[in-house]
């Protein structure tokens, strides 16, 4: 599960990372956005049900949908 800031929400941490990379000599870097990755071991073989459960978890707790978007990837079991 990927939790990232919505477009348009200022990301001072991403800006600090971008600045530091420039200091190290890396060039051609546009905006850097920092987010979170959460990995889940789930006790089910039903990918669709797992994805629906994860979406409910995002809405309930894992993402603050005022400022964050989320994206779910369920690999083949």
């Amino acid at each position, binding site marked *: 599960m990927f939790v990232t800031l919505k477009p348009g929400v200022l990301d001072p941490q991403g800006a600090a990372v971008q600045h530091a990379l420039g200091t190290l000599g890396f060039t051609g870097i546009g905006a850097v956005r920092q987010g979170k990755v959460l990995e889940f071991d789930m006790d089910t073989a039903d990918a669709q049900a797992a994805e629906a459960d994860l979406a409910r978890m995002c809405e309930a707790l894992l993402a603050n949908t005022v*400022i964050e978007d989320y994206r779910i990837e369920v690999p083949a079991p």
Partner: protein
Amino acid sequence: MKAAVIVFPGSNCDRDLAVAFARASGRQTRMVWHKDATLPPGLDLIGVPGGFSFGDYLRCGAIAARAPIMRAVGDFAAGGGPVLGICNGFQVLIEAGLLPGALMRNAQLTFVCRDVGLRVETTDSPFTAGYQKGQRIRLPVAHHDGNYVADADQIARLRGEGRVAFAYRDNPNGSAGDIAGILSQNGRVLGMMPHPERAYDPALGNTDGAPLFEALAGVTA
């Protein structure tokens, strides 16, 4: 005034807040553990204290906002009971959906721990009735995630409805609209980043927080 303070693992301003409530009301403050599902009967006021509940894991206040007691706090607020959230308590109230917007990492990415100048923006609440509108006060802040974020429409609505309680005069964290503290739609829930409980006792060198507690004791007597 019968007041309670909610205690989470990692709360560290809970006792200061309890002392402030007790001094204002002359009655002992009830401490309520986050795992409790019900509040003591007959409460007039709930405080959600500062600190680092649940280690600030996931997002500041996110885990605490889903603690069992928070359902009862939400019901208390919905019924018009006053709820005061300070610092991490403000973050918890936002995460619980009792106040709008979000509190993000300070714009300059540093922890800010100092006195800040504030302006009292409304006296039309049980929390701010003891101040003059436009009064300049100083209160301590101590936080890493106090950068208030909401879209422009929400900020305009908060302003228009008189729900900005306190504004920074020297914005320490990048907050939109210089917002330091906001009220719920019914004016009964206040969340603020500055610490009035650290500016109550004259021994602390500043009593600019005292009118907040004395007004609460007056309206909930």
